């Protein structure tokens, strides 16, 4: 790797040098409407540091070629770098073996890959599913980890069940034993909710799934960017992340799965590179992970994702998590001090991530978002691809502020000031 690592920001948390980190992100010096950009839409997508962009560009300008199938030098170099990227990301996740890692185009493809594996499986296989079988999710899933399972159940006649939510934005585990039972084939749930910020108790859910022999899929789209993840320690069977939320470009996601499961899964997308022997009348398939990477893979995006993992580790995920916890506490404390504003989701920093949804009485989230944008503050408004959560809490949509490693306390203060300005403009404060 020729990528320059970020400036050394190691040291005690109190010395976390957010300005040094910010300097690596070109877009953060942009102005929006004549004001400095305050980007608090990281749960939707993150920006990318020079180091990641340079690593990708260096690869494309010096070593690019299609991978896997060639003997010429560029093809070898590209293959080496693509597979090295797989190893880097595998190590980032604590995977035992790089072959347990499948590159997809985003997290969404990964859930679909697993869901279609169940749908495509031959009768008798561990993945076969049909009437009488169940799939369990939670009421706080992102649509991407909900709709594929709905579609699977519709195609196969299996039943979808879900773990409901408590009033304070947590999973209501009262009926866990009934919801996850001997008929449950898979329990798919989110690690950290993108709308509520809730961090779920993986251990409790995995323990119950193991008791009944259900497979577990953990949606790590909002955890992997922000904290140390160790898939072995988590004890799940599948883990999914998406590159664009963790400093990498759009166009890449990761499915990690236990080797023995990936090996047992039927193919999902058919095409080049995922095959062994092809005749016109039938084909056999390669072993994982190739079996699940049909066609030309997301080559330079994988190189960039590995550079992003390197960057995050150089800054230090523990330090990032500590920095974000400070920012999140500042948001929660700030909102608590404002009349007519309330948090939707856990309102303390215990077991939660950096995404904070809130409602301002009397102002529609769309108007909140637009008014904040006029102040240069980028937040997300809408249902955040979790419409059932909005319905659960009786709001049409929420306003969500979500910070990341490059956000500063001053930016949080700008947000809080912005909320007051919005209230004044709309005459609700």
């Amino acid at each position: 790797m020729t990528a320059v690592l970020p400036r050394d920001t190691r040291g005690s948390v109190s010395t976390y040098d957010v300005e040094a980190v910010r300097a690596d992100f070109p877009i953060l010096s942009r102005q929006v409407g004549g004001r400095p950009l305050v980007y608090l839409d990281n749960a939707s997508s993150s920006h990318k540091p020079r180091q990641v962009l340079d690593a990708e560009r260096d690869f494309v300008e010096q070593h690019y070629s299609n991978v896997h199938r060639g003997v010429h030098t560029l093809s070898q170099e590209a293959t080496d770098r693509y597979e090295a990227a797989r190893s880097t990301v595998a190590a980032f996740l604590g995977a035992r073996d790089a072959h347990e890692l499948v590159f997809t185009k985003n997290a969404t493809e990964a859930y679909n890959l697993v869901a279609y594996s169940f749908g495509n499986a031959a009768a008798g296989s561990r993945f076969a599913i049909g009437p009488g079988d169940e799939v369990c999710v939670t009421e706080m899933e992102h649509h991407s980890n909900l709709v594929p399972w709905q579609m699977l159940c519709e195609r196969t006649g299996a039943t979808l069940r879900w773990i409901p939510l408590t009033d304070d934005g947590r999973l209501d585990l009262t009926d866990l034993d009934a919801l996850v039972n001997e008929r449950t084939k898979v329990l798919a749930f989110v690690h950290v909710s993108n709308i509520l910020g809730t961090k779920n108790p993986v251990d409790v859910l995995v323990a119950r799934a193991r008791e009944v022999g259900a497979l577990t899929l953990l949606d790590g789209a909002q955890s992997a960017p922000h904290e140390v993840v160790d898939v072995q320690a988590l004890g799940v069977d599948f883990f999914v992340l998406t590159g664009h939320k963790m400093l990498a470009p759009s166009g890449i996601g990761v499915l990690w799965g236990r080797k023995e499961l990936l090996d047992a899964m039927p193919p999902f997308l058919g095409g080049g590179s995922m095959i062994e022997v092809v005749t016109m009348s039938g084909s056999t398939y390669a072993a994982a992970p190739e079996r699940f990477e049909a066609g030309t893979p997301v080559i330079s995006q994988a190189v960039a994702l590995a550079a992003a993992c390197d960057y995050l580790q150089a800054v230090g995920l523990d330090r990032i998590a500590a920095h974000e916890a400070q920012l999140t506490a500042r948001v929660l404390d700030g909102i608590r001090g404002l009349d007519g504003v309330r948090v939707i989701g856990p309102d303390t920093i215990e077991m939660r991530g950096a995404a904070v949804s809130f409602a301002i009485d009397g102002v529609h989230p769309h108007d909140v978002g637009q008014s904040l944008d006029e102040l240069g503050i980028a937040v997300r408004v809408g249902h955040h691809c979790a419409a059932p959560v909005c319905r659960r809490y009786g709001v049409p949509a929420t306003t969500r502020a979500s910070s990341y490693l490059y956000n500063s306390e001053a930016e949080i203060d700008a947000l809080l000031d912005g909320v007051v300005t919005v209230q004044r403009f709309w005459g609700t404060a």
Partner: protein
Amino acid sequence: MYQEIILDHYRRPHHKGLRDPYDVEVHHVNPTCGDEVTLRVRVADGVVEDVSYDGQGCSISQASTSVMTDLVIGKQVDEALRTSEAFLELMQSRGQLEPDEDVLEDGIAFAGVSRYPARVKCALLGWMAWKDATAQAVASSSGGAAT
């Protein structure tokens, strides 16, 4: 984007509240943001006699529905439909169109909204509901007796 005209209509919407008599009632939802409107139309002798509505949503969707009622009530259905086409065209113009105040009256305040694709749907919610209801009213009155 938040012109005074828009804020006025949002704070003091015109023709709001569901009224009788009506021919058709529709319910439209914008799934991305949960905005919704229930809208009634009464058409008689080819004229839009009344439009009444109730709903909730952002300032843009509420103000735009209010402006719409001003523009269509009392007009010939044909003419009202042309006005609605003009508004649709404006909203799809991505800020590139100079709106005609003679046709769109207060509706011209929404020209700026057309630069925000995420908000265009808000601005169109009430208009689409009205178009839908009116088409049904016209169809049922030409096909038989109206309620």
